[in-house]
């Protein structure tokens, strides 16, 4: 083994027919075996004969080399040759004995089955249905725990709820303010081009106000929080699951749902409406700035018109949706967290799923509310 890195000559086998020797040379160690063929096919003769594996010229020999040599010999024997082996050093012979005692024939390769398109679709549908069912079960479980919790309200995890409000709410303020402001600006810009061609500049106030209050404020906030927080919930609970922390909680008699899920649901129920209003303020602010720049509507006029045309009802219609978004974000995040299996890939997969599913459900819910509002003529 000395000077192992000094020479790494590839292991080779040469057939010498006149002496019946398979001369092995080079480094029969883990670093030298890259190029050597799996068996002696093409090197050793086809017709059965006596083959002696001559190892006098081998530089290095370790278990990888011994195993490779063993498999060459096995293969030669299977092809009808008589095989013998001469190892120059006793410790190599000991190594060979060790390997012979543990080695096994090459296992049959597994055949990878082709999967038809129908099977792919079928599997996808099955998985989605299962997920939906599991999500509803989880919703039920959380509801039951919610009812049970009122009996021991003193045990409630207030602190962890407040932490979530800080992380998901307070720390998101600047991001949501900036993005809402920019979205308000962009929307107002698109509308201002259309409105100014009709000379209906002042309607920018109505449009910006309605869009931000009824749709974009709550919606944008929910999407941002879903991306930011639902994934954080999944990663947190998922990592706890991998570390068996969830099991530890359970054995202490502390319900994981009560400790981990309910505080998050309540925290988002409080934080998300506040964030929505915050987002609406900045969205309308962005519209107001653009109306001033492009359409020369002064801030005073904008605010006066806003007060006249936007009723309080519009704000409320927007905010009604927010608790639903909050529940979707927290439940999907926690649900995916509990679905994590004990490996590193799973945490990544579930975190992605958590963002995808919560945003998907938010859009569906938002569309559903639009339909309901239109029924009632709002």
């Amino acid at each position, binding site marked *: *083994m*000395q000077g*192992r*890195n000094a020479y790494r000559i590839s292991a080779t086998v040469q057939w010498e027919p006149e002496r019946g020797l398979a001369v092995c040379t080079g480094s029969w*160690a*883990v*670093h030298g*075996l*890259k190029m*050597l063929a*799996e068996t002696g096919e093409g090197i050793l003769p086809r017709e059965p004969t006596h083959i002696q594996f001559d190892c006098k010229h081998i530089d290095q020999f*370790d*278990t*990888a080399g011994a*195993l*490779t040599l063993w*498999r060459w010999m096995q293969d030669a024997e299977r092809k009808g040759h008589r095989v013998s082996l001469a190892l120059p050093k006793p*410790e190599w012979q*000991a*190594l060979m004995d*060790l*390997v012979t005692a*543990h*080695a*096994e024939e*090459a*296992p049959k390769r597994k055949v990878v089955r082709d999967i038809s398109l129908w099977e792919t679709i079928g599997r996808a549908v099955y998985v989605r249905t299962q997920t939906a069912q599991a999500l509803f079960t989880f919703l039920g479980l959380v509801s039951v725990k919610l009812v049970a919790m009122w009996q021991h309200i003193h045990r409630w995890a207030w602190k962890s709820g407040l932490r979530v409000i800080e992380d998901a709410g307070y720390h998101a303020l600047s991001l949501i303010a900036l993005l809402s402001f920019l979205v308000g600006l962009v929307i107002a810009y698109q509308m201002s081009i259309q409105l100014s061609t009709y000379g209906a500049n002042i309607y920018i106030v109505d449009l910006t106000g309605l869009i931000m209050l009824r749709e974009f404020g709550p919606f944008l906030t929910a999407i941002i929080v879903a991306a930011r927080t639902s994934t954080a919930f999944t990663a947190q609970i998922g990592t706890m699951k*991998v570390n068996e922390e969830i099991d530890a909680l359970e054995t202490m008699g502390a319900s994981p749902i009560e400790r981990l899920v309910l505080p998050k649901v309540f925290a988002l129920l409080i934080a998300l409406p506040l964030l929505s209003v915050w987002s609406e303020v900045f969205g309308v602010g962005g519209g107001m700035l653009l109306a001033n720049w492009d359409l020369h509507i002064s801030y005073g006029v904008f605010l006066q018109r806003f007060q006249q045309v936007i009723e309080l009802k519009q704000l409320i219609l927007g905010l009604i949706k927010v608790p639903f978004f909050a529940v979707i974000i927290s439940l999907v995040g926690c649900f995916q967290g509990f679905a994590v*299996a*004990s*490996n*590193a*890939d*799973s945490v990544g997969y579930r975190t992605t799923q958590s963002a995808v599913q919560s945003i998907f459900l938010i859009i569906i819910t938002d569309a559903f509310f639009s339909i309901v509002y239109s029924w009632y003529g709002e």
Partner: protein
Amino acid sequence: MREATPVIEVRDLYNTFGKQVVHAGVSFIVKPSEIFAIVGGSGTGKTTLLRTCLMLQRPTRGSVSVLGVDVLRCRGAEAQALRGRWGVLFQSGALFSSLSVLDNITFALIELNGMPSFRAEAIARLKLSLVGLSKETADKQPAELSGGMKKRVALARALALDPELIFLDEPTSGLDPKSAYELDRLILELRAHLGVTFVIITHDVQTLWRVPDRICFLGESRVLACSPMQELLANKHPLIVEYFEATGGYRVQKQEGSAS
């Protein structure tokens, strides 16, 4: 014969974290093909020492050379070559949780050494058999394994590249006595057949009796003693006496004595 240069040479090692002094002048050498154990109470810096040797952590000062390479200075290709010459068994196994058992073992062979997969798999299966695991284990996921099996797979992974030096961090903790005994036998066998040098961190007194040539006792931020088990037990330093009284080292000695 092999060269006489030590496999590991730690000289005057200091490690401090803030105000906490972990090592204050630790020095020892590990000879080729030696089985060297490191013991000491909790918090005496056994794992820090291991991490320093493995280039995972830089010491405050001192010099450490492993397999003739100065681990504090080497970088790039030299460091990479060094990493190919040792194997490590981490305390918790540290198996790649998203890879199957077989892929865990073939990882270094295929990804870092360019070995064709048929050969890497054959080697991996051999190593699994060497550590006493059945064929069926190969296709399992780490999460499906028991603690003892995880340790064995981790050992098989450490053995994958036929390293010259193997670090074992608490190899027998969490194993049943029979598995621990077999693992100890395996370590001795590997040393005999392959001339592998072992550095073992352990609290298992049985292992300490059976396996190491020399035992390095860490305490008071330095090496209190570095000798074979028999001599170590004769050492009257209060920390050493306390340690072996608590772990039953003296009792085991009697049993071994009566058995032989």
